[in-house]
């Protein structure tokens, strides 16, 4: 009984506190706009944005779906690549030495700088957007996966050896579960970043998506619509993060018990 009370209090704390801060922020914003009579095309009031979102709901929904689909595909592509790379780098010494430095070096190239190349190669379809998303997502995922695979407790490894545990048994019963918490944090970071990848993909060339909508609204100085699209993007990021957090709870339930 007491535990569930605490839990309720925690959830309330988790949600209510940020909501109050956000609410205060919006109220201040609204009030300052009114006070200084800021024109709508410079900075719309939160109430203007809300009204615009309501008006644009169908439009936003369509672009939201398009972007979300690309982002999810890109995210999965990154996940698959990260698992394979993470496994190889942490298990094969030669690959570790050959690839790890390149992996890190690759992160010094801004994705937005190479993104136009994908347009040249793959045209205006879904593929360039998926690839830019994957490029943004794969690094934190790969690094976390490598960390996970190499963070196995050596004494537990010895215990497995003492009981004659084979390679496969050791991998499925020790290495993988040891790595899961790390993979899950990588997943949460990537989930949030993935939205950026999707938007970049649309900026370099697209006729659909929230990124495209932002460019369009900006060009036409429809500032309220621009802010509306940004709001929906933020919402998408939060949604993906929550999905990743939910997956984390499902996949590593023992850590939840530890925290409570």
């Amino acid at each position, binding site marked *: 009984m007491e535990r569930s009370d605490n839990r309720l209090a925690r959830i309330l704390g988790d949600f209510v506190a940020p909501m109050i801060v956000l609410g205060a922020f919006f109220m201040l914003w609204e009030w300052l706009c009114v006070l200084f009579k800021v024109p709508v095309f410079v900075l719309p009031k939160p109430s203007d944005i809300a009204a615009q979102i309501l008006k644009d709901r169908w439009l936003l929904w369509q672009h939201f779906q398009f972007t979300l689909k690309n982002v999810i595909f890109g995210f999965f592509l990154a996940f698959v690549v990260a698992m394979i790379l993470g496994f190889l780098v942490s298990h094969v010494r030669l690959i570790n030495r050959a690839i790890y430095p390149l992996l890190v070096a690759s992160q010094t190239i801004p994705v937005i700088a190479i993104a136009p190349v994908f347009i040249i190669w793959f045209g205006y379809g879904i593929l360039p957007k998926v690839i830019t998303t994957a490029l943004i997502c794969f690094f934190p995922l790969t690094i976390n996966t490598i960390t996970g695979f190499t963070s196995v*407790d050596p*004494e*537990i490894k*010895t*215990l*497995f*050896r*003492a*009981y*004659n*545990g084979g390679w496969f*048994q050791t991998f499925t*019963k*020790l290495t993988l*579960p040891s790595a*899961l918490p790390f993979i899950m944090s990588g997943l949460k970071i990537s989930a949030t970043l993935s939205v950026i990848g999707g938007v970049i993909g649309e900026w370099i060339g697209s006729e659909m998506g929230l990124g495209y909508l932002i460019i369009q609204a900006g060009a036409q100085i429809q500032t309220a619509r621009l802010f509306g699209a940004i709001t929906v993007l933020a919402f998408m990021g939060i949604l993906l993060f929550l999905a990743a957090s939910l997956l984390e709870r499902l996949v*590593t339930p*023992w*850590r939840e*018990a*530890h925290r409570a």
Partner: protein
Amino acid sequence: MATDNLKIQLRNVSKAFANKGSITAAVEDVSLDVRPGEFISIVGPSGCGKSTAFNIIAGLIRPDVGDVLIDGRSVAGRQGQVGYMLQKDLLLPWRTVLQNVTLGAELLNRSRAATQREARDLMATFGLQGFENAWPSRLSGGMRQRAALMRTVLSHQDVMLLDEPFGALDAMTKSLMQEWLLEIWTRFNRTIVFITHDIDEAIFLSDRVYVMTTRPGRLKASIDVNLPRPRSSHEITTTPEFGAIKHQLLTALRDEIMKAYGSPKLQG
């Protein structure tokens, strides 16, 4: 020598480690025999090679020289022949208590159903009833060590190697665990090799205590503990017989520890 009725034999075992050009002799020419069902302890100064000897019996380290036999068969470099437990409980945080205690049997490919059944039956004996489905993070230190020991028992190996299993427990829990370990040992009829720094613990538990020298670890003394069994309580530790054995052991050990402190090799 009648080798047939010996459970464990170390025959002139030596092992040295090469480390950045320098060579550390960890164990040198150690020979010892353990009969089935015996409880023996090994004591010695820190870093003298106790765990190395232990790992040689477990097949985790191959001796440079000599041989190690279990039931008369060489097990040098062969794993999966003994039960194995360390000071750290090494419970897997992602497995429930029940899944943890069956891990050893599982890795040895023993029948899953039979192990599960036995584990459930033994939960009470190991003071873990009601915690079958709990995560290890919920257990106290003593409970964690009991779960680790249960994993060792359930692996169904005749020989159990315990390397300072109670080293991290508080005095009270430790003495309870010792009494309880003797019950387990009697009940399951296993052969136990026990490593400890605690002389009282070694005497209270064992049939025989081996003293190792400062590195390189050789056997310095083998002292029989002829105290009556069952030794169900610690009252026995106040008897003059216990005191005499302790005196013997301390004398043997003190020389070694003095040597260790007098020698610059301690840090090496």
